[in-house]
């Protein structure tokens, strides 16, 4: 029951706090690509891979009181923060499930900006293409982001570091 919810709760338990909706979307997608068995379905959207299912599931977890959502007014935008609650921890304790340890990957991801994770997740989306074709795709479908060669190179290196979670 609610297994997919519980998997996400494991993520929040490991991440402690996640700031930004876009960042959250990209983190879960990249972890999925690193073989963490999240089952949310992703499609390509405005900012790259995006999961409607994830968005709905987070909302459900908030409604259930397992995750807290806080809004923070920044100078010209609103930032959302997500964190596991006591009820959420209690719910998680009742579940026994095998999930790989994703702590290291999560801390690598948290240290990056959402713009960078947008780039990385977009590159992951075209996984299997030759590197040149990936770069071409990024420039074609994200012309407004104007990613530099340096950023793209850094993203390739980051992908290498994000080895599959054991």
């Amino acid at each position, binding site marked *: *029951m*609610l297994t997919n*919810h519980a998997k996400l709760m494991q993520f929040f338990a490991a991440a402690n706090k996640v700031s*930004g*909706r*876009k960042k959250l*979307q990209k983190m879960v997608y990249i972890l999925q690509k690193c073989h963490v068995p999240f*089952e949310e*379905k992703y*499609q*390509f*959207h*405005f*900012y790259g891979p*995006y999961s*409607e299912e994830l*968005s*709905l*599931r987070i*909302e*459900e977890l908030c*409604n*259930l*009181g*397992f995750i807290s959502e806080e809004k923070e007014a*920044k100078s*010209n*935008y*609103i930032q*959302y923060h997500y964190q596991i609650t006591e*009820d959420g921890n209690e*719910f998680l304790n*009742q579940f026994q499930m095998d999930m790989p340890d994703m702590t290291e990957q999560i801390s690598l991801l948290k240290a990056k900006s*959402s713009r960078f994770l947008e780039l990385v997740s977009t590159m992951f*989306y*075209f996984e299997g293409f030759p590197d040149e074709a990936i770069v071409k*795709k990024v420039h*074609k*479908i994200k012309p407004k982001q104007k990613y530099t060669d340096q950023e793209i190179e850094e993203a390739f290196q980051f992908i290498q570091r994000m080895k599959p979670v054991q």
Partner: protein
Amino acid sequence: MPYKDEQLHEEKVFKDPVHRYVHVQDRVIWDLIAAPEFQRLRRIKQLGTSYLTFHGAEHSRFNHSLGVYEIVRRIIGNFENRNDWNDDERLLCLCAALLHDLGHGPFSHSFEKAFKLDHEHFTQQIILGDTHIHKILERVEPGFSQKVADVIDKTYEDKLVVSLISSQIDADRMDYLQRDAYFTGVSYGHFDMERILRVMRPIEDQVVIKSSGMHAVEDYIMSRYQMYWQVYFHPVTRSAEVILSKILHRAKYLFENNYTFKLKPFHFVSFFNEDVGLADYLKLDESIVFYYFQLWQEEDDVILRDLCERFINRRLFKYIEFNPNQQMKEWMELYRLFKAAGIDPDYYLEVDSSSDLPYDFYRPGEEDERLPINLLMPDGQLKELSRNSDIVESISGKKRTDHKLYFPADVVRKLSDALPAKQRIMELLNLEQPLKGENEHAD
């Protein structure tokens, strides 16, 4: 004449209950419809298990795909010669519209979850792999199949083309809302599509709506909202989905544990092994699934036999409202009690959740990923729909979630009264009185 420009000698029409006629003039479209991979869609129902709730809902993915094609054909007809519209994209749009659901399998939702599949992945494979569809598209021009695949995957560079097939007001949704309303027989789901098509305008990388058409769009948004809760998330349909999903999990479990089926489930082997190639995928349509479900009613395994018999004969699970936050302990108690009573809770106790977001708007400064519906004001400015419409504003950005607990009431009631667990199960499941819908067979 190049193949891409070839026209049929006479226009062909398909009679259609929603759009009256679907018109085909392009040779390419006619050939795509005739391809085996497209004809396969006739054998896949558009609404999966909904026919067990709404007996008219037997329409197929084939009907819907033609419908989406027809809507896009009409939109493009209106866009011709307008600024911001590139007529060279016409055939690409038509092909993408026609083929957007090509990778759907039987009862997609349950199969995808049980066997970790993704129908979109198969759509791409059918378009890009060694198939009739691929050959037809490549005859248009080398690389054309990749363009079609990119539009459907939403990674095509021209976002205007993508938005016709996939956005908050796209041809896909406009067709399925009307078609599903027609075949289920419900009165929601209807809106003035002709009006919407007349007020759609292409600008740069999106389709916008002339502000004078706002009320027609309001109707469309409301009909989507109602269809989700009245049809798509109907609790009886979800009960059938739960059973279907349990059948697939049970059959997979048995296969993995070397159970000997009376007839080897050839068509399912690669699904059970989670190693499904395109050829196997294309072979499995609903007729095959029902064939196996019929056979499995005769299996020695009691659980598989019972679940199949339930699904085939519409002996569905009953349900009660359930709040996982407040009732988690009850659920765990039920889980233990079911075990004690000899009813396997992994197959006979399930919480199902449904959620929908009727319309989402984009607030500047927020990180949302859905492009909003924009109104084109008389002065040429764009205004997001919910800022102008009180009706849309009232349901914007609001997700609704519904959790239900499903179980076989008939099995519980038949437990021996001498069994200590029975009384408590009956209490927890509110079975002391008839449940809603119990003893009724009508929808």
